[in-house]
């Protein structure tokens, strides 16, 4: 039981990183980037490729994969800013298209093989009293916490962070106050792509990646973004840990085959409980004040 709680919490920290880019994009641009999962998988493939080629530690490859995905963020933003209203729905649809493109691109580049960064430094387990921890999971959780801490500082202590939060609260008012909301949206998408690349490398150390593997990741991202609400980055971590616990305990009770179904069910009940609005601070039709 204690073991399950600890691994659930570790998984949750990692989930918070997985969802961070998606949640940022939703907050600032009101777009549901359905290709977020595929972007993470692309980061994972890139990480595997670099790791197999260079033998560098996966943690050092995170910034490389993050930088490599920046053009993807640029491209997605170029698409998103041209979408007609209602943006939640059109971004969902266009994001589906981008996800298909990325899947085929990865298939063409890397084939359909399952890849795992099986770094020997990450496979050993640590014993802490009654519980044993997989070093890879611990490292992923710690790296995720570190990135989220940096993100939190960036959002609360920098000019960009203030602009992003103002745009998330009310795009029109932010524009009236002299904030370049288009630029803020672009930097948000660039950051979101970088976060996807970095979390992809971590993902590839924990799970096998394959071109069609983005679905469960984007489902997790949607659940966390809905739970955390608009412009509430700190609650993303709490939401991640909560989902990690729900998933780990649910899987321990039902069996490992139910993992993805469980997340889908959580998504469904979250939507039903919200009763029409996507997330706190967001109405069905557009912005809340």
């Amino acid at each position, binding site marked *: 039981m204690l073991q399950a709680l600890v691994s659930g919490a570790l998984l949750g920290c990692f989930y918070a990183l997985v969802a961070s880019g998606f949640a940022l994009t939703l907050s600032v641009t009101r777009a549901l980037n359905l290709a977020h999962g595929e972007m993470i998988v692309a980061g994972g493939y890139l990480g595997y490729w670099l790791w197999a080629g260079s033998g560098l530690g996966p943690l050092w490859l995170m910034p490389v994969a993050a930088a490599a995905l920046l053009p993807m963020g640029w491209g997605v933003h170029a698409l998103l800013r041209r979408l007609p209203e209602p943006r939640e729905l059109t971004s969902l649809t266009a994001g589906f*298209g981008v996800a298909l493109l990325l899947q085929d691109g990865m298939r063409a580049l890397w084939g359909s093989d399952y890849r795992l960064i099986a770094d020997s430094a990450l496979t050993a387990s640590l014993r802490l009293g009654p519980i044993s921890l997989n070093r890879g999971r611990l490292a992923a959780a710690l790296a995720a916490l570190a990135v989220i801490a940096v993100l939190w500082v960036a959002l609360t202590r920098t000019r960009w962070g203030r602009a992003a939060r103002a745009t998330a609260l009310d795009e029109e008012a932010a524009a009236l106050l002299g904030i370049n909301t288009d630029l803020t949206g672009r930097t948000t998408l660039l950051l979101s792509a970088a976060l996807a690349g970095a979390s992809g490398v971590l993902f590839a150390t924990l799970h096998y990646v394959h071109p069609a593997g983005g679905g469960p990741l984007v489902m997790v991202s949607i659940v966390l973004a809905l739970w955390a609400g608009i412009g509430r980055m700190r609650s993303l971590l709490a939401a991640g840990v909560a989902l990690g616990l729900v998933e780990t305990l649910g899987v321990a009770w039902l069996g490992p085959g*139910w993992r993805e179904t469980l997340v889908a069910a959580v998504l*469904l009940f979250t*939507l039903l409980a919200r009763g*029409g609005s996507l997330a706190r601070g967001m109405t069905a*039709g557009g912005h809340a004040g």
Partner: protein
Amino acid sequence: MSASPAGLVAATALCALLPAAGLPPYYLHLLASAFLLATLASAWSLLAWGGQISFGQAAFFGVGAYAAALASIHGVVSWAALVLGATAGAAAGALVSAAALRLSGAPLALATFAFAEIGRGIAINWERLTGGGAGIVGIPALPGPASSPRAVAYYLALLLLTVTLSIFVWMARSRLGLALAAVRDDAERASLLGVNPAAWKLCAFALSGGLSGAAGGLYAHMVRVVAPDLVFSAWYSLVPLIMATLGGPRTALGPAAAAVGLYLASELVLQPLVPTLHQVGYALALIAAVLFLPGGLGGLVGRRRNAAS
């Protein structure tokens, strides 16, 4: 709109002659598959008529396929099994609508997506009933003349598509279509005028689910195997969305014509040329449709919301 019934009759008559004209079985199978996708696209636009965008038609397709397959391997006559598939699809549609009563727009789209994923999970994990990840094999073939085994499935798929298109044409002119259009344009005002949005939305979902379920049941008997990743695949949610968006969801023939055209183009032209990139055509078409179609998806979910944002 007035040209639709005439065009529909002409196209159906033309298609009905093809097996007699000696089309090889492979092409009959290809066309029958295209008709099933066209049925899905048209069933999707029944929902879109009321402003409901579904990302989860695979749920109804899969439920129909499994219901028909299970009935068939337990000795039910094929025809009855197909009807059962349609009924199961309709029940699934009604269930989704009843659960997601208060949702619209993006939340509804995400909820239907989750429903399809849950259906897939149940099909994988309820092994005693569904055979788990391997699915159900050995579904009996449809009865018919041994000389042309594909022709029966072909005619059934054509019949199903014709029924679906007729229902769409009828719906667009009926009380149901009017009520759904009123709900789409402004649900609040419609309910003030005495239209009960929930009941009409449920009708649309049950209709759309039933037709998609019938397509799933027929698919199960054509391919004679069902598996979670086969019939609950996100593919069957995506294709109707893409085809109907491209073909113009407010038109009777547009979604079906786009489905048949795109599917045949993809299978006969794109697939042999670039086998690894078979999704690229669909993906680019979808993105282009969202970006450039006049009115686009935005036109589908009601004026009120557009004006507000």
